[in-house]
């Protein structure tokens, strides 16, 4: 299973990658939203894991682009530290499959990823 992870905080990104890799996933990590989007366009990922606030492109923009421009149904999980309900509503509105508030619990993240991958295939 191949996952793309877009997150601009180095420590969090590296930790998450390390964690997911230790669970058997292949992870491509990006700290810039634009770079991540380029990678999504050229590669086939089984799941997209993205932060909202990032340089380049935001997680919202990535989600919108994937759903509307590429017309892809790849599962998308949005990570955010925003406690605002509207952010969560907006995320689902533009087509995200899951919304996880930071700080992210690795165990919860894993369960959500597995669930999405199962229902998707």
């Amino acid at each position, binding site marked *: 299973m191949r996952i793309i992870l877009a*997150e*601009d*905080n*180095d*420590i*969090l990104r*590296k*930790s*998450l990658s*390390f*964690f997911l890799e*230790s669970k058997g996933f292949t992870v491509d990590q990006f700290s810039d939203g634009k770079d991540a989007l380029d990678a999504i366009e050229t590669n086939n990922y089984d799941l997209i894991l993205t932060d909202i*606030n990032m340089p380049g492109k935001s997680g919202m923009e990535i989600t919108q682009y994937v759903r509307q421009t590429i017309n892809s149904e790849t599962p998308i999980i949005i990570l955010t*530290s925003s406690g605002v309900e509207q952010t969560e509503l907006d995320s689902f509105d533009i087509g995200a499959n899951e919304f996880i508030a*930071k*700080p992210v619990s*690795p*165990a919860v993240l894993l369960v959500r990823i597995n669930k999405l991958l199962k229902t998707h295939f």
Partner: protein
Amino acid sequence: MNSNFPVPENELQRLAALKRYNILDTLPDNAFDDATKLVSYICGVPIAHISFIDESRQWFKSEIGIGVSEVPREISFCQYTILESEMVEINDTHLNERFKDDPNVTGGFNVRFYAGVPLTTPDGFNIGTLCAIDHVSKELNESQRNALSLVAKHVMAQLEIGTKNIQLDAQRKIAEKAVLARDSFLANMSHEIRTPLNAIIGFTDLLAQTQLDAEQNDFIESVQIAGENLLLIVNDILDLSKLESGSLTIEAAPFNLKKTLKHVYNLLKIKVQKEVEFNLFLDAELPDMVIGDQGRLNQILVNLIGNSLKFTSEGEVIVAVKKMEETEDDITFKFFVRDTGIGIEKSKHKTVFERFTQGEESTTRTYGGTGLGLNIVKELVELQNGEIHLKSELNKGSEFYFILKYKKVQAVESSAKPLLQNNLGNLKILLCEDNVLNQKLAKSVIGSFGFDLDIAQNGEEGIELLSQNEYDLILMDLQMPVKDGYQTTEYIRNEMNSNIPIIAMTAHSLVGEQERCYKVGMNGYVPKPFKQNVLLKAIKTVLNQDNDTPKRYIDMSFLDEMSSGDQEFKKEMISLFIEKIPAQTEQLEKAFHGGNHDAVKKLAHNMKSSLDIFMLEDLSEYAAIIEEQASAGEFTPETRENVNLLLCGVIEVVKILKEL
């Protein structure tokens, strides 16, 4: 006077009297409206009014059935009424020579009946009228006429009260201003006096420690006593101004009751005259620790016992404490100070607690004192919800007793802090102080403790010295040229990121000053004139505080979960954190000071994620608040505080992580 209306002989004085009441063109008033209604009821008329007549018009303070606020004086009926000393009653205007062709009789208000009572001031001027008017002819009976005159009297009384109130209000404002001026004068003066007094007492203490002959020793002792008395007086005055302005606060901290009493006893023992026995009796049931204001208890006792010792030349002075009542939460104590001194006459028992009064006029001459002591004692006792009483007979002695309730110390709190370390070793101290006298004084005192001292003339110089040398502690004067104590501390904490203990030294002792010191990051506070042992204690406290603070525990469980127990990876993440976060903090601070909201928002946001990994909830919360306020585009003092808290926390965490 050239006018087309009759003018009273005393018109000028009459107008002056009217002006005195400040009634013209004022807003409606219920009291007057009620009186007008009363006139209408009494006389059974549709029109009634209370009016005042100035040089050109009749102005209605209150009216029924008229509907205008004023009419020209020359068309009013009342222009004639104010010429009379009695009520004017015109039963039928159509039969009255003067009025039968009046426009307000033939038309206008259609006045057929008119009754007007002049409103006469206590000094005899008719300033207005109270009137009843009808469209039909009418005759009032005797009771109605009497009632009308009575209402007029009441209206006049009402006016008198109004002016008295205005006068009182003005007087009150003047008095309030005077009190305010006096309070700030007292606070400023006592501050100005304390500064040089600080030098006098300090140098005298030092001088006393040098080699002196017997006579010199005697002189020095006199200077010391005089200096300390002067300080007591100045402190009394300062307390008084604080009590007046309500800014004196009562603390609630655990303290040792027995020790406090013994301390006061030992302190005053030296003042006892030869033929007097001085004893302290403590109730066996007295607890060691209670919660309350130790300083204020001290002050009350010193004052009362000091008085007793002063006014007793033979016999005894006894201080005793008894436990009166104990509940689950608190204990009530009765404190006695009893003497066999000169006593106080029964008639003076109340007034001795008043300000500037003493037992006898001659007391001041014979015994000195400000006459403020007992007043302050009473206020202090009452501020602590206690009560104070006096039993005394002239030439037999006095007994003052006061009752105070203290909170009990719960078992947990009694396991007090570990005792102060006595051996501080050889400390290197930096003093920031611009006053040469104070520098010299501090140098000698610090020298006598066996510590090294460097002196900076101002904050700027202090910062320079601090960046060149290692110090254990900074003593900081608050008022300095170039950079004052607050600015310097802020710089040390925020720019230099130093946690060095800082003790404020100040002669201000003003309200809120202490809080301000702690707020900018100082660790201790010593009021000037400082006592050697107070300074030493403050030094010990801040240094111990540093050691006592439990080290922050960093929760790695999140990182452990992420790294699935891989130690190498964990180490890598820790070093990444150590490498990144201090730089980010620095950028954050710069951006904050530069007012760059966007940069602050991004940095705080990014840092938050890193802080979450090490589960630093408090720091993460600071970052969240900073991010939020940066998003709102507004930095407040709260933002600044959170930036400071975040900086301190990051420094601490990085230090701990580096030691791992």
